[in-house]
């Protein structure tokens, strides 16, 4: 059974007062991750097919075709993991 670890290479807290979280998807799984996320999240804006402004369960985030996503207002790792599970799996 797939887990979020199959998709996620790294999670980084941003440096700065904003406390955003950047998720970097594994290179070989990034296209699949992007497809899954786009299928489940609501698209608010799309720029040149490479940047997607999305929302899911009251959480706004941006997804980049390079295989990275930036999430805001995430309280802790558990909340992020729950969100990623629902988006990816």
């Amino acid at each position, binding site marked *: 059974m797939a887990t979020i670890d199959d998709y996620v290479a790294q999670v980084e807290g*941003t*440096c*700065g*007062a*904003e406390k*955003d979280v*950047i998720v970097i998807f594994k290179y070989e799984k990034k296209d699949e991750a992007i497809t899954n996320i786009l299928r489940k999240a609501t698209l608010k*804006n799309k*720029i*040149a097919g*490479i*940047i997607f*402004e999305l929302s899911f369960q009251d959480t706004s985030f*941006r997804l*980049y*075709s*390079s295989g*990275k996503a*930036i999430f805001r207002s995430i309280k802790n790792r558990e909340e992020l993991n729950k969100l990623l599970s629902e988006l990816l799996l």
Partner: protein
Amino acid sequence: MNNLAKGDEVLVSLMEHHSNIVPWEITSKLKGFTLKYAQVNSDGTLDYDDFESKLCGKTKIACLSHVSNVTGVINDVKRITKVAHDNGALMLIDGAQSVPHLPVDVQDLDMDFLAFSGHKMLGPTGIGVFYGKKEVLEKMSPFQGGGEMIKEVEFSQSKGRCRVSWNELPWKFEAGTPNIAGAVGLGAAVKYLEGLGMDNVLNHEKELTHYAVERMKENSKVTIHGPSDLTKKLGIIPFSVKDLSSHDVALFFDNYGVMMRSGYHCAQPLHQVFKLESSARVSFYVYNTKEEVNRFVDILRELDQL
């Protein structure tokens, strides 16, 4: 460490990289000396009056960046060093952002110590240079023990202890097997930069910085932080884009294969001076071109769509 005690003062500025703040905060707690911070003006330049007024007979050492890693502001370290010496203090200069980018003459500037990193000047990571005046280093005790830094380690049967004497400079401060590969790599980088000529390196960066700042001003959503007088700074431009976090900006550029630093840049106190949560930072070196500046500005314009 051995030369600092309760009652002494160490002076730094609010524009320092964390690497010139955190070690002093740690050692001040261990040794009990007072750590003082000189103010920075709202444009990121040093408040010279404040720095100089905080230098006094109690100040053992003053520490200052030659060039800010956030704004590129160039500090007049010759002036500050003179005032430090007039007050009987030693002067340490963080040259991590100056030595790679402009000619630095330690004899003319007269600082007692100068530190800089290999990886900021085309060299390897994990190695750097710590320059010290010979007469100052000779008075100092080693901070690390091990091989090479000793002259003799003689065991006394009667005392049951070893009598240790120190090696000559510079080995006195080079305990253990050194980072030989790193030193060879850094030496090659130094030779390469000397071949280019540091005046040429400086002029190239100035040209790109002036060009980039002018082009960035075309974008009404962009705010550039730091001094507007470009003669006061080198090739580092911190900026913000309206309604976007610096991380959004950096990830946007990442999509186009352009690497950019976002966040505090290891200088949170300076961001507090600027009242910023973070900033994006574009910077230039010898390998960058005007065409790349144009590409940067073009991508910046595309951010309008976000």
